[in-house]
């Protein structure tokens, strides 16, 4: 528990004023950071210093700071969400870094996630994929009692494994091809495991994959990097299920 103080670290960060502007790296020093601080608190300290120095602070996405909203998105020293496992950037702590270290921070890089400013990217492509079919078509009201739909515990658990996706985009950021397969698989797989979702399973798989393809993501090479980077450890077994769902849907046309 006794956290040390990092007297000095170097932060090399991508600066880009607007989507069209040309970006560049800038290196800053940050002093007196407790290793018990979160990574984003370190950025807060840096930003405070930048503002006081009359400079523009680094724009970055963040919100809940407890690893569930999926807003934070930094590519730190070659890792989406930094050098720790099963965490988002906001859950990364400075105890993963050492005195005098240079930390390189880049935005998610993908044609489908254009940079808005500095480390903020536009992930609305994920919205469009979800809108294409990531739902069960039921209106409010008129649904049966919850207990009339029996679900095997194992199926509910597996659906929950997939549903844990926070939509942060670390999978896309990490994938060498910038593929969104893990994200799409998580959604398709969640519904495929549940009786409520089975009814529209074929339509859903086709619609979501078609939308994904349209938006400029790359293809899946099954490297498994996505599941290693995923803060919620979503397994690529769900990608196999997505493939199965999609192929059966296509072949039953």
């Amino acid at each position, binding site marked *: 528990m006794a956290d040390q103080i990092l007297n000095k670290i170097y932060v090399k960060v991508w600066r880009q004023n607007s989507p069209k502007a040309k970006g560049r790296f800038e290196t800053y020093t940050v002093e007196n950071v407790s290793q018990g601080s979160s990574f984003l608190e370190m950025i807060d300290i840096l930003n405070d210093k930048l503002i006081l120095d009359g400079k523009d602070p680094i724009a970055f996405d963040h919100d809940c700071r407890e690893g569930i909203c999926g807003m934070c998105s930094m590519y730190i020293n070659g890792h989406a969400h930094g050098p720790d496992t099963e965490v988002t950037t906001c859950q990364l702590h400075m105890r993963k870094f050492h005195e005098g270290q240079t930390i390189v921070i880049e935005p998610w890089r993908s044609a489908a996630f254009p940079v808005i400013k500095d480390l903020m990217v536009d992930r609305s492509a994920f919205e469009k994929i979800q809108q294409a079919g990531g739902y069960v078509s039921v209106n409010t009201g008129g649904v049966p009692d919850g207990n009339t739909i029996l679900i095997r515990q194992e199926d509910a658990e597996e659906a929950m494994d997939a549903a844990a996706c926070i939509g942060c985009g670390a999978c896309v950021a990490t994938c060498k*091809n910038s593929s969104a397969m893990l994200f799409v698989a998580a959604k398709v797989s969640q519904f495929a495991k549940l009786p409520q979702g089975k009814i529209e399973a074929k339509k859903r798989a086709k619609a979501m*994959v078609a939308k994904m393809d349209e938006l*400029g993501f*790359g293809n899946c090479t*099954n490297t498994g990097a996505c599941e290693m980077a995923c803060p919620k450890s979503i397994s690529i077994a769900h990608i196999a299920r997505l493939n199965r769902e999609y*192929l059966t849907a296509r072949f039953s046309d």
Partner: protein
Amino acid sequence: MSSFLSASIGRKFLMSLTGLFLVSFLCIHLTLNLFLTFDDSGDLFNQAAHFMATNPFIRVMEPLLALGFVIHIIWSGLITLDNMRARPQKYAYGDSLLSWWAPSKNMFILGALVLTFLVIHIMNFWVKMKLTGDPLLTNVTVGGVEMHNAYALVSALFRNPLYDLIYVLGGILVGLHISHGFWSAFQTIGLSNQIWISRLKTVAVTIGVVFGVGFSYIPLYFLIKF
């Protein structure tokens, strides 16, 4: 159907099917080639080669095999181009999650190198046997049947250490390519799940090692023996 073959999963499906088809060919190919090392007179290998060259089923499969290669190669190019477009700006720091040599990360490069090897290999044998002929390629009679002395061609080539090196490398490259490609194909077809992923990965690595060691063993056998 055209939309299926241009969809991401459709294209990968095609890659998987052709890949698995090519693996099945390699199984037969390796088995037959290992005959080279079982019988130093060359009769066994020559018989096997003759059987393959005259068997109607194999004759039918030959163009299909070529087609499999062509599709596998063309689609890999299409997919790779697409993947490059998906990340126009690369990371400055790179990716430190997977090691640089991980086959899964290098399938296109491995594939391209295997292709290069394949061209050399075809020039060395297939072209000579089927098209141009070669002074070494005399006819022999084994068990009363007249056939090409393919064994002579092979054993002569493998006395050259440079070719041995190329063939050892070729074997390793094929092994690496398959050590990812095999399980990846099942994953893409959808024949995988939480339990089978690790099993398939083990099988893939095993097959990769068998191909790598098996294909490398043949030139090394000749190098050491002769």
